[in-house]
């Protein structure tokens, strides 16, 4: 029988090293292929798909960490959340800049009108803005300075991830299976946090019933 293994800082250090190696080398290698026209007939579409799906994968992985740490009772795992989340942001930035640079080829007016006119691009862009704020406030000193608002701010990751799922579903022509699988995985990860989402609602509800009860008593 395996005795319960404790994940230590040394373990997460090596997990982080692997994460950097895999996420960075995959990104660099795929861009190299695209620049040298080795990524299929339409390297622009290929790179957009790669960076978009990559960002979504990393985002889901970052959302997996807390429930996993709780389930396995391995608190140390939580330190992986920040680098994975930051890589999700890096991939998302690559996705957006590839769209601007290679798909629209720096037609700024077209970029603006597409963001405003096309719902699937609007929600994707909003998700990117949210991720940018989260990335910008991700360092330890900022986290300390923000105090309790930091957690509130970073809860927006749930909104961002739902927008990303919507962005993916709305972007396809008819082949909905894969985007729907992604959305279901996301929903499962959100359901795993149901107590977190339900708590504020419950406490508000409790407060209300309490005040109603006390009002009744007064009457």
């Amino acid at each position: 029988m395996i005795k319960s293994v404790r994940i230590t800082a040394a373990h997460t250090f090596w997990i982080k090293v692997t994460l950097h190696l895999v996420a960075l080398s995959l990104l660099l290698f795929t861009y190299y292929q695209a620049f040298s026209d080795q990524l299929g007939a339409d390297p622009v579409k290929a790179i957009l798909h790669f960076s978009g799906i990559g960002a979504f994968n990393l985002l889901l992985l970052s959302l997996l960490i807390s429930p996993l740490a709780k389930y396995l009772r391995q608190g140390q795992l939580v330190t992986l959340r920040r680098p994975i989340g930051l890589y999700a942001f890096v991939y998302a930035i690559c996705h957006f800049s590839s769209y601007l640079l290679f798909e629209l080829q720096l037609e700024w007016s077209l970029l603006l009108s597409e963001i405003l006119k096309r719902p699937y691009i609007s929600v994707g862009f909003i998700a990117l803005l949210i991720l940018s704020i989260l990335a910008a406030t991700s360092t330890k000193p900022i986290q300390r300075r923000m105090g309790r608002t930091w957690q509130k701010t970073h809860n927006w990751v749930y909104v961002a991830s739902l927008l990303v799922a919507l962005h993916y579903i709305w972007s396809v022509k008819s082949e909905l299976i894969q985007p729907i699988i992604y959305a279901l995985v996301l929903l499962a990860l959100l359901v795993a946090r149901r107590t977190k989402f339900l708590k504020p609602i419950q406490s508000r509800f409790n407060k209300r019933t309490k005040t109603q009860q006390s009002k009744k008593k007064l009457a």
Partner: protein
Amino acid sequence: TPLEFSQPQVYHSEDLLTPEQKIISHNNFYEFGSGKSDPLAQSQSFKVDPWSLKIDGLVEKSLTLDYDDLYKSFELQERIYRLRCVEAWSMVVPWIGFSLAALIKKAKPLSSAKYVVFETLYDPDQMPGQKNRFTGGGIDYPYVEGLRIDEAMHPLALMSVGLYGKTLPPQNGAPIRLVVPWKYGFKSIKSVVRIRLTDKKPQTTWEKLAASEYGFYANVNPQVDHPRWTQASERRITSGGLFTRNRIETQMFNGYPEAASMYADMDLRKFY
């Protein structure tokens, strides 16, 4: 297999050709999977000989072409056409084929014929996309396309049996496909087994799937956007990687103004 064909000057083009490797590896052919590279990967064992292409419906003389007839019944020509996909990318393809009008004339159409309906082969054993809705992009097979009779009789409408001097590879619609260069690519139905003349407007595959996005006419029109993206410009697929400056303006009727007269009295925003 190499083909013999003439190269009429009128169908030559100044446009830079899309490399053959790209034309045969970047395909929308959901019968072989919905990814762009799926058709190449999944179609290589597709059997095209024997083949049977039937022309029937409102004609005096229905006829059936077998595999050899496809190459021998009509004079083959090379025609360089721009292909504009509804997804806003485009290619320049040296097709080889014969005029659709010649084929229809041979069957002697009745004056009551108003529309022409095309159908792709239905063979789930050979076409994995037809086997289940998950790999086939949710399409109700067989794939059906249609043209108005005057569109079908237009000299630009081509039945293609080859490209770059050789017979069509399976992923490009072997052994015979339609090419309608002034319309979005999805109108140019692949691996055709039946052409039926009728008096009723058919419901086409993509119209059935999403009528607000893909209309029956599907003429290339930079002024009518797809609901989810602009059609004012396109990316021309040539050689070169990410930095190729290939975004160009889309032309009305894909740069084939000779098609315009057929739609003179029509509101092309309504009949998109």
